[in-house]
């Protein structure tokens, strides 16, 4: 049994822990190569630096469309890449049983359904018998008054 336990009364570790690399205890198929955790960590830090300074430097761009695209990519695009790297290599999702990935995807789909179901009510300000703009009070004055 691939996750058989040692002879310890309460199991300590699956026996396979002592003999094989991290990814293989999870694997349905073993990858041919595995980058070291230190390399992944260094890459994550490089991406972090880009995601911090990219949007800051992008503020100098005058063209609004280019600015928005640059900020979206450097902040959120790289965020997705970083999250993917952590999930794949640190959480070992790339070698985990496939149904775990599917389970997580199902949860994401539910979340997107929630978003899609509610978004029109929030994003469309005017509708039958409702006007969101007239009800929303921007509190900046309140904050300024409070400070003084």
């Amino acid at each position, binding site marked *: 049994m691939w*996750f058989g*336990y040692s002879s310890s*009364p*309460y*199991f*300590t*570790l*699956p026996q396979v*822990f*002592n003999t094989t*690399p*991290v990814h293989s*205890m999870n694997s349905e198929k073993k990858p041919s190569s595995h980058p070291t*955790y*230190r390399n992944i*960590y260094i890459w994550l*830090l490089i991406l*972090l630096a880009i*995601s*911090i300074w990219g*949007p*800051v430097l*992008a503020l100098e761009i005058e063209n609004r469309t280019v600015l*928005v695209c640059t*900020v979206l990519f450097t*902040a*959120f695009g790289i*965020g997705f890449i*970083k*999250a993917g790297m*952590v*999930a794949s*290599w*640190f*959480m070992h999702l790339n070698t*985990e*049983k496939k*149904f*775990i990935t599917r*389970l*997580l995807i*199902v*949860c*994401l789909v539910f*979340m*997107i359904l*929630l*978003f899609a179901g*509610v*978004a029109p009510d*929030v*994003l469309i300000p005017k509708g039958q018998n409702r006007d*969101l703009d007239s009800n*929303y009070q*921007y*509190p*900046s004055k*309140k*904050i300024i008054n*409070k400070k003084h």
Partner: protein
Amino acid sequence: MSNSFHAPIATGRESAGLPAGRLGTWWVVASEIVIFGGLIASFIMYRLRHGEFWASQAEHTKLYAGALNTFILLTSSYFAVCAHQAAQQGNGKKAAKLLFRTILLGAGFLCVKAYEYTSEITAGYGPLSDLFWSFYYISTGLHGLHVIAGMIMMAIIAKDASKENHLQRVECIGIYWHFVDVVWIFLFPLFYIASGL
């Protein structure tokens, strides 16, 4: 009544093809995706709705404090995965040492967050100042609670691991901790970086 020990039945479950502890951890992560995902999706929805005003509010968050916290969490994740590797090699003491480093970094994260909260509330941006700040405090506060919970669990597991007991749990707490890291990876650009949009 027999005095001999038996491995708990649940830990040897084969139907899912992986240890029950890890399966349970993944279930927790899956439910957390809905919690944090819903929160983030709602934030994005209102961010699109109140574009310029919320962007001006995001300018008041401290970018470098958020960046420092991202660095801290990424480093703690690195230590957590190294602890997992050590546990896999049967080196419980090393795993425990690395887990304690992770806990220390978690404490550092909370200190930076406390500094941020203090300075923002002092400046007049409290949880009730505006919907943006309500989202900010709920999201980062809930995330902070997960960090605290992770630190407590990690301390218990590290204590056991230092005695070479229950080393398989190191992987489970690692998965949870990495998830907390992933959540922060998304919260960071939303609250700290997107002010230029």
